[in-house]
């Protein structure tokens, strides 16, 4: 496969996914914040809360509408740029994505409409139910997408059918409740809740800094920071479980996230560090120019045991007999056996040779879990980009910690003091909106770059997943997408800022 084509296809998908991910997290969280506000309105019957709900609902709608079709673009790209991959995973992705499509379509077209058009046309109770169902529905949509993504990180619940060259689902529940899918889902939605909370307290802080819509802003801040504090604590817990799953299922990703080349027991976590750019797997340079390490924390985080052995990149590439880790070279040999067995199977089928057919199938089954290694050219190719993984992970963790502190401070000053007198805190809350997006994108980068070179962990490297089409076509569509997405983003920011500028009293919703 032409290297440029794979790179352009990857770049195009990364671009789409990252733009799509600008819109999704806010939708996930703001839906619940709006539902909470409307619940207060229904309970208190206070028109103030109706106005407040309508204001945030308007921003929710803008974000939702602009982001709604970028997901479709990703599915379009699966068909055009990733044909081998789409075919190979077809049956596994088909079910969750079909459920997502049906569920999203019915829930959103029905309840979304009631939520926006139904004020004063349906009963308060039904309107409130619709708002909650929209919030739950958008999170359920995320569930199916993340189940599919979780399967790519940890493929389970399927058998490979050499006749169709497809993975066929044999246990739906294994796919749905895979520990990777569950932790990925919980951590991702929690990140969306935190981002939405940052959005609410940030925008409200802007009003307070401008000394306008004060009551509205103060009350919104209390809702936003309470929701943010609870969900950021949950984000930490789900992050811990997510890291544990990465340690168990994708140890190379964990090693890259920590810049850990040599495996060790009692492993410390790098709290802060600067990687040595000269360091590669094949030289003896120090991995860090500067590092501050918290002792035992990586063993604890990864394996829930402060003395556990955490394998480094070298252990995973060259193997570690003492720790029972087989080398990439060995996996490549098994992978090549699997690829050869698939070829033999097809030939035996054509020749109607039953013995060879059975023999090939047996070899294929035995080595299938290393199938992707059969396409790896050299052992070092299984190492993901260490610098991107390391910095993204540490940016995400550092910002996540800041958000928890920020929510605590904002909630305290909003409830116990007059928050208007703390402009520095209000400015910090306002500027934390972009930080929330950076943290959220960094999370995706850790998850996706960290699993390279795999499109499907151990089964299919990205080079094999891509469709053989003209590189120029991919380049053209890359630039079209880049332009389109940027224009849409500018449009969203403009529409949002205009709407925010109108304030909570605006009739334009």
């Amino acid at each position, binding site marked *: 496969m032409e290297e440029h084509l794979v790179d352009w296809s990857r770049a195009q998908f990364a671009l789409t996914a990252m733009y799509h991910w600008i819109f999704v997290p806010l939708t996930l969280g703001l839906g619940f914040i709006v539902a909470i506000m409307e619940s207060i309105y229904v309970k208190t019957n206070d028109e103030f809360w109706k106005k407040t709900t309508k204001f945030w609902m308007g921003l929710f709608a803008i974000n939702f509408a602009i982001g709604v079709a970028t997901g479709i673009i990703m599915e379009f790209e699966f068909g055009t740029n990733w044909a081998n991959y789409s075919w190979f995973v077809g049956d596994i992705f088909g079910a969750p994505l079909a459920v997502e499509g049906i569920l999203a379509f019915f829930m959103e077209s029905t309840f979304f409409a009631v939520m926006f058009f139904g004020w004063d046309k349906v009963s308060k109770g039904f309107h409130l139910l619709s708002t909650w169902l929209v919030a739950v529905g958008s999170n359920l949509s995320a569930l199916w997408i993340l189940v599919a993504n979780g399967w790519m990180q940890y493929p389970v619940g399927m058998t490979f059918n050499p006749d169709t060259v497809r993975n066929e689902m044999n246990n739906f529940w294994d796919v749905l409740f895979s520990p990777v899918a569950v932790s990925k889902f919980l951590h991702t939605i929690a990140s969306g809740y935190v981002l939405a909370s940052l959005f609410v307290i940030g925008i409200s802080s802007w009003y307070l800094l401008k000394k306008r819509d004060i009551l509205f802003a103060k009350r919104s801040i209390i809702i936003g920071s309470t929701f943010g504090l609870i969900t950021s604590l949950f984000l930490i817990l789900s992050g811990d479980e997510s890291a544990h799953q990465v340690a168990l299922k994708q140890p190379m990703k964990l090693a890259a996230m920590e810049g850990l080349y040599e495996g060790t027991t009692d492993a410390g976590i790098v709290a802060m560090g600067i990687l040595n750019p000269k360091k590669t797997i094949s030289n003896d340079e120090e991995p860090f120019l500067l590092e501050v390490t918290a002792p035992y924390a990586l063993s604890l985080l990864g394996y829930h045991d402060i003395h556990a052995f955490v394998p480094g990149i070298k252990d995973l590439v060259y193997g570690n007999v003492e720790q029972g880790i087989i080398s990439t070279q060995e996996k490549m040999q098994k992978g090549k056996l699997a690829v*050869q067995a698939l070829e033999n199977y097809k030939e035996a089928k054509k020749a109607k040779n039953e013995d060879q057919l059975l023999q090939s199938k047996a070899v294929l089954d035995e080595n299938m879990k290393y199938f992707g290694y059969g396409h790896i050219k050299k052992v070092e190719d299984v190492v993901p980009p260490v610098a991107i993984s390391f910095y993204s992970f540490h940016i995400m963790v550092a910002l996540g910690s800041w958000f928890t502190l920020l929510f605590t401070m904002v909630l305290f000053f909003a409830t116990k003091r007059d928050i208007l007198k703390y402009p520095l805190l209000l400015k910090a809350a306002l500027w934390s909106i972009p930080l929330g997006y950076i943290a959220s994108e960094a999370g995706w980068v850790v998850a996706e770059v960290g699993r390279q070179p795999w499109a499907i962990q151990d089964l299919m490297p990205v080079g094999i997943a891509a469709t053989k089409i003209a590189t120029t076509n991919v380049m053209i569509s890359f630039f079209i997408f880049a332009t389109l997405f940027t224009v849409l983003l500018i449009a969203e920011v403009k529409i949002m800022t205009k*709407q925010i500028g109108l304030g909570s009293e605006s009739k334009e919703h």
Partner: protein
Amino acid sequence: MLNIKNIYSFYINGFKNMTIGKTLWKLILIKLLVIFLFLNYFVHDKSLKSEYKTYEEKVDFVYKNLTKEN
């Protein structure tokens, strides 16, 4: 029958009374137009679906990519 009429007028009135919603619908339509007309037909005119008509041809195409050519 009355219910269907009510639902119909609920949606129609809702769409008619939209303010920002109209701009948002335009943006969605532009996006879909670019994806499904321009990109689908002029840029990515060849795909597994368009190139190979039968299931067997598709299987054979993917099989070759996963074995011989690597």
